[in-house]
């Protein structure tokens, strides 16, 4: 086996236009979600006089920093429906966007290390099957067969007692996903405007009529916020609050290795997850840093702890080296589920709260958010993910249930 060769770095795939003075809709945030939203607005709703405003470079936020795990094996019906819609879209998007972004359905394993884990996992497999999500329970022997480099013996602190497995899950190349959407958006007439920070909103009473940016004032009929870690900052500018806390989330890669890791392994209990990127790096991550942070960096002990867990589970990684570590800013909610829907401001919509696990949701976020913006009402799939669930109490608690939240 040898590592997959990546395609050559492509030429520019989109124009860099100056902002027009007005658009039918403006998307704030040019990460994966902003791009997917603009794409579906243009494709499904015929809204092509729209712009994506990005304060930095396109997809340089969490989209550039995530570890690309894609799966849909969430516990609750609402989440399974949303993430499974996303997975079905991932399966057709390479062809639809005419871009092979290396979506690799190599499966994802969620390890169980305690009796509690085992019970919760088997319950989740059952729930997944009822929702039409592919899911299996593997015993330690089957775990070993699927991923021979995993230490499944009982000489470790938390032996592997089994795992849930979703064969259709996997990883994709995040930059290429962004470029694929960006190229199609551009072809459909969407203006992608980089280095354009939204600094305020124009309102007529409670209705948004425009945005103030570092590149001038832009009038617009509708605003969709897709700013991930900066959602609270934008909501504040617009005059409302979100139940979001922004935290650093870190990840790391090793140097390049021959392919040794055939799938994706996640462990909630010893808290690490590992895959091997197409080029050959081992890609690892874990949980958020505990404190609020907009610094795009976290503390080193978080890295140290996840590496300790990784080495215990994968003894052959002991001699790998850390090549790079980095952090993003993730927008967490109290129920570990996203918010996609209306806001207290008329004609302003919000997509946020995807926290540590929104890459996998990118196409479904785009599909449902575009529907919400175009029609002024939620799509069937994002209706449960409204902001007012925090008032009605209809929370979608995916904390423990979703295994490691990525």
């Amino acid at each position: 086996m040898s590592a997959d060769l990546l395609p050559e770095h492509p030429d520019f795939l989109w124009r860099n236009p100056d902002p027009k003075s007005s658009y039918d809709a403006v998307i704030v945030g040019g990460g994966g979600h902003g791009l997917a939203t603009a794409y579906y607005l243009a494709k499904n709703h015929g809204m092509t006089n729209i712009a994506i405003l990005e304060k930095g470079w396109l997809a340089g936020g969490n989209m550039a920093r995530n570890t690309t795990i894609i799966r849909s094996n969430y516990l609750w019906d609402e989440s399974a429906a949303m993430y499974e819609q996303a997975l079905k879209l991932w399966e057709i998007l390479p062809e639809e966007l005419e871009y092979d972004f290396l979506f690799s359905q190599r499966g994802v394993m969620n390890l169980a290390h305690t009796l509690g884990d085992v019970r919760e996992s088997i319950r989740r497999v059952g729930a997944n099957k009822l929702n039409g999500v592919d899911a299996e329970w593997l015993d330690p022997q089957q775990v070993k067969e699927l991923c021979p480099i995993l230490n499944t013996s009982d000489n470790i602190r938390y032996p592997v007692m089994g795992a849930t497995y979703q064969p259709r899950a996997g990883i994709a190349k995040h930059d290429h996903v962004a470029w694929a959407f960006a190229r199609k958006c551009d072809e459909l007439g969407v203006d992608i405007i980089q280095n354009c920070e939204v600094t305020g909103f124009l309102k007529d009473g409670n209705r948004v009529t425009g945005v103030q940016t570092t590149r001038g004032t832009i009038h617009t009929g509708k605003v969709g916020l897709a700013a991930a870690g900066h959602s609270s900052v934008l909501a504040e500018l617009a005059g409302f609050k979100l139940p979001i806390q922004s935290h650093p989330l870190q990840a790391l890669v090793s140097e390049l290795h021959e392919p040794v890791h055939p799938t994706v392994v996640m462990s909630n209990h010893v808290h690490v997850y590992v895959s091997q990127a197409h080029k050959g790096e081992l890609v690892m991550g874990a949980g958020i840093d505990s404190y609020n942070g907009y610094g795009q960096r976290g503390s080193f002990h978080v890295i140290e702890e996840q590496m300790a867990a990784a080495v215990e589970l994968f003894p052959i990684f002991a001699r790998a080296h850390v090549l790079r570590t980095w952090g993003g800013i993730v927008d967490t909610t109290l129920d570990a589920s996203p918010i996609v829907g209306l806001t207290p401001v008329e004609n302003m919509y919000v997509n946020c709260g995807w926290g540590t696990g929104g890459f996998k949701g990118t196409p479904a976020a785009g599909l449902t958010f575009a529907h919400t913006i175009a029609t002024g009402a939620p799509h069937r799939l994002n209706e449960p993910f409204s902001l007012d669930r925090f008032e009605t109490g209809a929370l979608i608690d995916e904390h423990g249930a979703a295994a490691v939240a990525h």
Partner: protein
Amino acid sequence: MLLFTCPNCGPRDETEFHYGGQAHVPYPENPADLSDVEWSRYLFYRENPKGVFAERWVHSTGCRQWFNMLRDTVSYDVHAVYPMGAPQPATATTQQKGA
């Protein structure tokens, strides 16, 4: 690793502390009188500033005491450490913003 100065024990590694989120969030005086909206604000809504944040920490592997801290959420600089119950000290940044 951040270095925090516990008011009782002095400078210690971040790993000795636990985070308690936003400071100065009083339990509602009459919880039964709150509307659903007010109750949701108390339960689920916290400030999330990009800049100076008043937050609680507990020195869990040291003196096990809670205290408050003003910390910048971008630079992670600590501006002030002060006791539970004391009002939030003003800093240059919070004054500028008029917060």
